[in-house]
């Protein structure tokens, strides 16, 4: 036991001290935060007001039809379309963007208008502007058709439709939820692969450097193998926990910098579900008021709701369990492969049966994004070779019973005990074999050696 601890310590310390580990560990969350920040930034950038020069050839319209908003200040332009284009071309003031809107005289007939720009505006702003122009054209048609404008305004409908999960009685946005689950699946898949291969490399290194025989004269091969596997697992967990900690800090920081309104402290304080419902109602009524011109905020609000509703503690605990279970299952097999060969280029043949189920599991998890309730998902979340990757998608979506998770866990533990036993027998013989690459038949024989 004491010796295994020594081995675990060496495997752990030697890897955690490596430059590549430190860089990856620190860079990972920075990359995540950078993506996250970029995504938010692209959505909300150019929040400066843009001057819109409206060239209106329709006789009915008056400038007052266009209400100035946070994003746009409308101004009537008189002249031809060519003049408008020229003026926009001459505008080199990069700090103040100017765009032009051309409304042709027969707009209701051709159903077309034009937006001219020198500097492009963000897609969300563009959508808002299109909506405004659309409304303008609609109003024009209403007037033309002689319909009462007030009556029309009451007919115009924009419903706020929520999808409620009857099990949890909460509004669910399955796609975003399964995306969160898939993120965890992906990390598990990545970690099993990354750290499984590290185990294999470690074993090959011990063989090629000929340290192995020195080691096995002091410790049992099983201790050596388990020491390596556990040590590397701890490296993986360390990396994951640092990532979680750094990412949360960075994300809060990024959000705080980019979306100060959204993340005021009172909102963060309202995390518990009871309050969530209230704030949801509040948001919904606000949405009704701002219906139409606040798509941006609605989307982000929805995302925030999902993020706050996600059972992070459960997910992260299950992540740790399934990562360890899946990793232990695969790592001993990777160790066995490493023991059977003399160098990494010989591993291909033996890697295929190990990597195939892992890649398959990943594909199943990816499919869950479009069909989170599928039957296949239920099956593969119980099969031990795929369950570590698949189960978390189901948990994130929320359609899984606790006993299902328990059964899947038990199967996983039993299987990894079994594979570890088999793998250790291959390992024990393999590490002392040099020279030619063994065949599957030979490896099978090793299982019976004393």
């Amino acid at each position, binding site marked *: 036991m004491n*010796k295994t601890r*020594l*081995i675990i310590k*060496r495997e752990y310390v*030697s890897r955690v001290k490596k430059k590549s580990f430190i860089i990856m560990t620190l860079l990972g969350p920075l990359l995540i935060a950078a993506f996250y920040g970029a995504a938010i930034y692209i959505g909300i950038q150019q929040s400066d007001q843009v001057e819109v020069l409206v060239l209106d050839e329709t006789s009915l319209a008056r400038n007052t039809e266009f209400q100035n908003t946070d994003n746009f200040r409308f101004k009537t332009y008189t002249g031809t379309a060519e003049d408008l284009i020229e003026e926009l071309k001459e505008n080199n003031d990069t700090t103040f963007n100017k765009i032009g809107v051309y409304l042709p005289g027969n707009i209701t007939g051709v159903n077309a208008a034009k937006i001219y720009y020198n500097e492009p505006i963000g897609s969300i702003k563009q959508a808002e502007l299109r909506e405004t122009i659309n409304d303008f054209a609609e109003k024009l048609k209403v007037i033309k058709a002689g319909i009462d404008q007030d009556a029309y305004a009451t007919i115009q409908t924009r419903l706020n439709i929520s999808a409620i999960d009857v099990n949890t009685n909460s509004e669910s946005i399955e796609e975003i939820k399964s995306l969160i689950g898939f993120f965890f699946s992906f990390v598990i898949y990545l970690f099993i692969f990354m750290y499984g291969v590290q185990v294999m490399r470690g074993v090959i*290194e*011990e063989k090629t*450097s*000929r*340290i*192995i*025989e*020195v*080691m*096995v*004269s*002091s*410790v049992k*091969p099983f201790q050596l193998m388990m020491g390596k596997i556990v040590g590397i697992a701890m490296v993986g967990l360390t990396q994951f926990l640092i990532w979680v900690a750094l990412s949360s800090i960075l994300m809060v920081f990024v959000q705080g910098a980019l979306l100060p309104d959204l993340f005021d402290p009172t909102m963060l304080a309202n995390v518990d579900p009871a309050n969530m419902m209230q704030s949801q109602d509040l948001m919904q009524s606000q949405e009704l008021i701002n219906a139409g011109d606040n798509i941006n905020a609605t989307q982000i609000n929805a995302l925030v709701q999902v993020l706050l509703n996600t059972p992070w503690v459960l997910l992260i605990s299950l992540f740790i369990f399934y990562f360890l279970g899946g990793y232990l299952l695969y790592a001993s097999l990777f160790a066995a492969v490493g023991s059977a060969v003399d160098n990494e280029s010989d591993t291909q043949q033996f890697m295929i049966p190990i990597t195939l189920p892992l890649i398959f599991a990943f594909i199943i998890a990816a499919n869950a994004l479009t069909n989170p309730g599928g039957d296949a998902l239920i099956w593969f979340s119980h099969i031990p070779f795929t369950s570590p990757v698949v189960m978390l998608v189901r948990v994130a979506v929320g359609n899984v019973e606790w006993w299902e998770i328990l059964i899947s866990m038990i199967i996983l533990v039993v299987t990894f005990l079994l594979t570890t036993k088999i793998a250790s027998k291959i390992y024990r013989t393999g590490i*002392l074999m*040099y020279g030619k690459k063994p065949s599957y038949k*030979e490896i099978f*024989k090793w299982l019976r*050696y*004393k």
Partner: protein
Amino acid sequence: MTEHQFVLEARGVVKRYAAHTALKNVSIQVPNQSIFGLLGPNGAGKTSLIRIINQITGPDEGTIHINGDRLAQEHIQDIGYMPEERGLYKKMKVGDHALYLAQLKGMKKSTAKKELLTWFEKFDIADWWGKKVEELSKGMAQKVQFITTILHKPKLLILDEPFSGFDPINTKLIKEEILKLREEGATVILSTHNMESVEEICNHIALINKAENVLSGEMDKIKNDFSKNDYKVVFKGNVVAFANSFWGGFEMMGKNQLSENMFEAQIRLLDNVKLNDFLTGVIPNCEIQSVQPIVPRMNDIFIEVVEKAKKVAPTDQDAADSETASKGNNDE
């Protein structure tokens, strides 16, 4: 622990692999405080035996005894093993690595460090404590390996080709240390192809050939058994006259001219002829300078035994081969 006559005993050890039998009923006895040469051609089964003693693999039949007790897990602490294929973790620091290996042998970190520093001084590698293993030359890495093998003061040392990779000065250093360890009470099993070293420091040997122990015992006795009654005679005078003074019972194996009328001849006395009879015959014909018995060298004994096995036992070997072949077939 009571001292047993044999620190290590292998009784009827058999080890089979899928395609061949590595050890066929091998028994050896290693006396306490001996330096025991474990000899044999490549692939004879020495490493298999050593691995069984180190509990790296288990025997299919037979038992191993340490001081009379059946080999068990706790004996790992009593054995120091330096394998022929030896390496170190390249990326580790030399001192940390040595400490790690010592701790795996059950030493406390503080004691291990103290003793390691002494040994590092003694072997002139103290400056390398903080360097990385990959910066060491082969000889220096070997020194580190030797130190880590003996640091925990094992009762039984198993050294597989300990001198390979060492220059003559370091070879001498290691030999002296081995002898010193023996004096301090250790028993050393030396597996090597370097017969000069065997000659120099071993007092017991076992020769494993084709998975069997074909020759073992005290080295002096073995040499005596293999002695051919050969003598080296240096004389002044005429070679023809010297040769003519022979009659039955002597044979000249070779001769050398040392100077104008000085010669050296190797002669073999046949059957029960005494040295005196030979001298009586040659003294009238030449002037004897010196007469020395020629003791067979381990190298010659090794070659003789192994070659003889090749010639004498083709039938045995055929039988053995067909046996392993059929065994192999069964395994398929």
